[in-house]
């Protein structure tokens, strides 16, 4: 059977692996989703990341996403213990992880089963399955393999058994440490990628180790490449223009850390928490080389307090956390708001409430970010939507924090945290870097809070400035920072702190509409869902539907012009990765329906009837799911 026929048929028989006869047709694709899945520690993630980097160098659009087990060392061959990588390759720029996978390489059938149960695979997905288990000495394992294999074949998956262990043992003594590069070689062949780029990538990835390691991995790569050429009867090509400018391939957490570095901040205070910690891991490695400090505090509250103390005494500082840590920081964040100390708080959102789903994505902390902390505590809330955005948002946040003496919360999430997407290498600008604080003498008669009557903005002086001595306090205070119980003074202080949000809002640009400027339906999103929403919208527009989308970077304050955009569309709805009640539930009606966070905000602020659709499956929302929802909503008229 040739590859074209194979792609069209709903195959129900097992694939026989054997010498391919004659020339193989190479099927040209515009995009494909590939997964590599193994037990933890077998290197599937390195394989996936390398595949992404090679494809990026070929000029392909790439999005890679980690598949992470919740446990550190899950038992081998367990359904919930799969670790690996999902790579979406495209002819054009790829903005999200895509729909169900088209091709999977699995190192054992149990981790594969986990992906099947998660609904991660297309119904006719091509599966390349390590077959060493068929002959395992443990009859239970062999039986489990055969049973799963048979079930997968019956279910319609196109399963190819591949002897990775056997082939790798020809080159290395421990195949467990080599299969990932064999798999990489096979994938290079299957996707017509340049083998030399694969060798380069191995040199980069293992360059720190000795030449022997590089050599044996290159041999494994070449063996995988050759094996796939000789034994698999299909191959693909995803044409791309070779990239013309340097691209940086990093994940969102690394991008955030580089943003901290680029913003010129001196101190990052944190406490370990998934999925935020890798920001600090990376920063700990690089920050000190340029004189920065990553302080691992004794708890989340201390981390936030430490950051506030450092900010108070000098430059704006950052603290990095995730949902539970964000909850713990709330009181301290309120102190920074009250005392008008600039502070950047990064919240890499995960599933909540409580401990929730630490390694899984959710956009559940928007209200906590906006309204958390008791009393009126206005903060800026922004949400990057791409890996590139993660980098630049820290620089922007630091600037806003220092210009307005405010707390700026950056909401990313577990998807952005571990996904990789190439973006143009940033060109350094001196304007990114926080200048040292001007510590010249404070003119006589200056007030610590000389609130501008129109904007609420006040200058700030810091310890070390002669003539500026004052005591900050979390108590209500007057312009001299003196504790004040006067009703008028409390009114004045809260007014000033609130006005700053309006002042910032006046400087924001209206976000661009994706698609047409008017139409039947406007989809609004924020954060990591941007790529999936726009892909769905683009597809529907190509079919003639009048759908557009709008993505919000600033959630608080919201940019001007949003209401006017909404009014040009027949219907408006949000797509979000958080909870909303399904209006079709028996007891749900308009008087008790809980909307998704952004939908609720838009309804409240603009008095526009904003509908919503959301899910909390701990997975990025797939463009296909959005497409189905939008089609259904459009049909409802």
């Amino acid at each position, binding site marked *: 059977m040739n590859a074209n026929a194979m792609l069209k048929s709903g195959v129900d028989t097992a694939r026989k692996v054997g010498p391919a006869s004659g020339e193989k047709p190479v099927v040209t694709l515009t995009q494909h989703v590939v997964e590599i899945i193994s037990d933890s520690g077998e290197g599937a993630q390195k394989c996936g990341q390398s595949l992404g980097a090679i494809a990026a*160098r070929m000029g392909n659009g790439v999005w890679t996403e980690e598949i992470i087990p919740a446990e550190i060392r899950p038992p081998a061959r367990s359904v919930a213990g799969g670790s690996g990588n999902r790579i979406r390759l495209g002819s054009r720029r790829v903005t999200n992880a895509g729909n169900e996978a088209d091709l999977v390489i699995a190192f054992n059938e149990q981790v594969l089963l986990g992906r099947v149960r998660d609904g991660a695979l297309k119904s006719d997905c091509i599966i390349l399955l390590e077959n060493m288990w068929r002959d395992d000495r443990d009859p239970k394992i062999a039986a489990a393999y055969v049973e799963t294999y048979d079930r997968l074949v019956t279910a319609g998956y196109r399963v190819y058994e591949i002897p990775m262990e056997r082939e790798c043992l020809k080159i290395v003594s421990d195949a467990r440490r080599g299969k990932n590069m064999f798999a990489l070689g096979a994938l290079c062949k299957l996707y017509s990628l340049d083998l*030399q780029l694969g060798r380069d990538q191995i040199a980069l990835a293992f360059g720190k180790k000795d030449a022997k390691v590089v050599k044996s991995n290159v041999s494994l790569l070449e063996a995988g490449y050759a094996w796939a050429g000789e034994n698999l009867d299909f191959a693909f090509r995803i044409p791309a223009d070779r990239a013309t400018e340097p691209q940086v391939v990093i994940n969102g957490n690394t991008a955030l850390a580089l943003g901290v570095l680029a913003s*010129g901040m001196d101190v990052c205070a944190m406490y370990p928490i998934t999925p935020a910690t890798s920001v600090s891991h990376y920063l700990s490695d690089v920050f000190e080389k340029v*004189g920065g400090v990553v302080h691992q505090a004794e708890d989340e509250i201390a981390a936030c307090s430490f950051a506030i103390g*450092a900010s108070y005494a000098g430059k704006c500082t950052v603290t990095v956390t995730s949902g539970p840590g964000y909850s713990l920081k709330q009181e301290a964040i309120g102190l920074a708001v009250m005392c008008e100390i600039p502070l950047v708080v990064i919240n890499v959102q995960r599933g909540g409430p409580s401990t929730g789903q630490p390694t899984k994505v959710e956009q559940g902390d928007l209200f906590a970010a906006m309204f958390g902390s008791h009393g009126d505590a206005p903060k800026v809330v922004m949400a990057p939507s791409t890996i590139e955005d993660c980098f630049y948002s820290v620089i922007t946040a630091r600037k806003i924090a220092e210009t307005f003496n405010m707390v700026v919360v950056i909401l990313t999430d577990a998807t952005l945290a571990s996904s990789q997407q190439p973006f143009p290498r940033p060109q350094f600008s001196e304007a990114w870097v926080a200048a040292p604080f001007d510590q010249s003498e404070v003119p006589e008669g200056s007030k610590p809070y000389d609130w501008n009557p129109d904007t609420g903005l006040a200058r700030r002086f810091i310890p070390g400035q002669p003539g500026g001595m004052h005591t*900050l306090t979390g108590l209500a205070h007057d312009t001299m920072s003196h504790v004040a119980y006067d009703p008028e003074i409390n009114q004045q202080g809260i007014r000033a702190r609130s006005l700053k949000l309006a002042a910032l809002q006046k400087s924001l640009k209206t976000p661009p509409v994706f698609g047409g400027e008017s139409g039947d339906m406007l989809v609004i999103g924020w954060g990591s869902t941007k790529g999936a929403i726009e892909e769905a919208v683009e597809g529907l527009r190509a079919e003639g539907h009048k759908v557009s989308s709008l993505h919000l970077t600033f959630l608080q304050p919201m940019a001007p012009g949003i209401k006017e955009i909404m009014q040009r569309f027949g219907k408006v709805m949000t797509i979000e990765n958080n909870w909303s009640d399904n209006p079709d539930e028996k007891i749900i009606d308009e008087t008790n329906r809980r909307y998704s966070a952004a939908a609720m905000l838009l309804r409240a602020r603009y008095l526009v009837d904003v509908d919503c659709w959301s899910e909390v499956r701990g997975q990025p929302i797939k463009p296909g799911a959005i497409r189905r929802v939008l089609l259904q909503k459009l049909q409802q008229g």
Partner: protein
Amino acid sequence: MTIAATECLLRMYEEHHDLEDYQGGVPRWCTGCGDNAILAAVQRLCRDEDLRPEKTVFVSGIGCSSRFPHYMKTYGFHSIHGRALPIAEGVKMARPDLDVFVNTGDGDCCSIGAAHWIHAIRYNMNMTVMLHDNQIYGLTKMQASPTSPRGTKSNTTPRGSYLEALQPLAVTLGVQNVSFVAQAVDWIPEVLYDILSAAHHHKGFSFVRIIQRCPEWLPKLFDPFLHDPQKVLLLGHERGLHISPAVSKVYKNQEQHDPSNLNRAREIASIADPIPVGILYRNPDVPCYEDLRNSGQTRSTAMIKAGLEAEFDKFTVWPQEPSERALPAA
């Protein structure tokens, strides 16, 4: 953060301060409150050491004690309950050039902020910490605190408190990296001053527990100690507190205690009656966290740019042909 060196030099010649240069708002503490004595001693210390008010920061939490910074004419940060220590640590990390003091109470430090207290000892950052210990919650109107003696009647323990009092000195001396521990009482101002001065001179986390009277809620608590000088155990030593003849005349109950003797310090720490007063422990050789972390470095834009470009280099996918950057084929 950098300060022009010339500015520092110029100031060295000009600066001279009087007591009123350190006196901020008029204290609102109750008449007879021990906090007043601590304030007087600290203002005197600032004057005698000629501390530059703009380079001096008092950080506090919440409680009667924590109003302290408002009454100084230096920089101050009256923060939130229990978090004075981590905030002060942030200040010191960003600005090791600043002289940092912390005022905290028995509720602030030993209850809500207890976790930070333990770790602050471990960090051993160079700051002077005053634990204003009146053994009762004052600002919230008389609830038992962790240091209230067992049986203390309060609004939350009307039949007497249930638990033995926590011993802050014993706790502090049990933590790795402890470098300076002392105890003073508000009613012997001369010794209070000497102890605070020694604490300030010590490089590291100088922890001074100051037993202070609360005339409002526990007016009689320390009466036996005030009436009988024998109920104070003065710790003198040539390497510790130097006791003046005038003080010796009244407080005859004394012990020669070498502050490098940690074991004896731990024994003394658990004595509640008589009240030990003096320097229990001092170790000048414990490294400070801000030094270990090389804080306060000058960072130029060029350094940041170089660091950033080096990182980008690691992650950049170059558009060149493979052969240009390739390894020899295996």
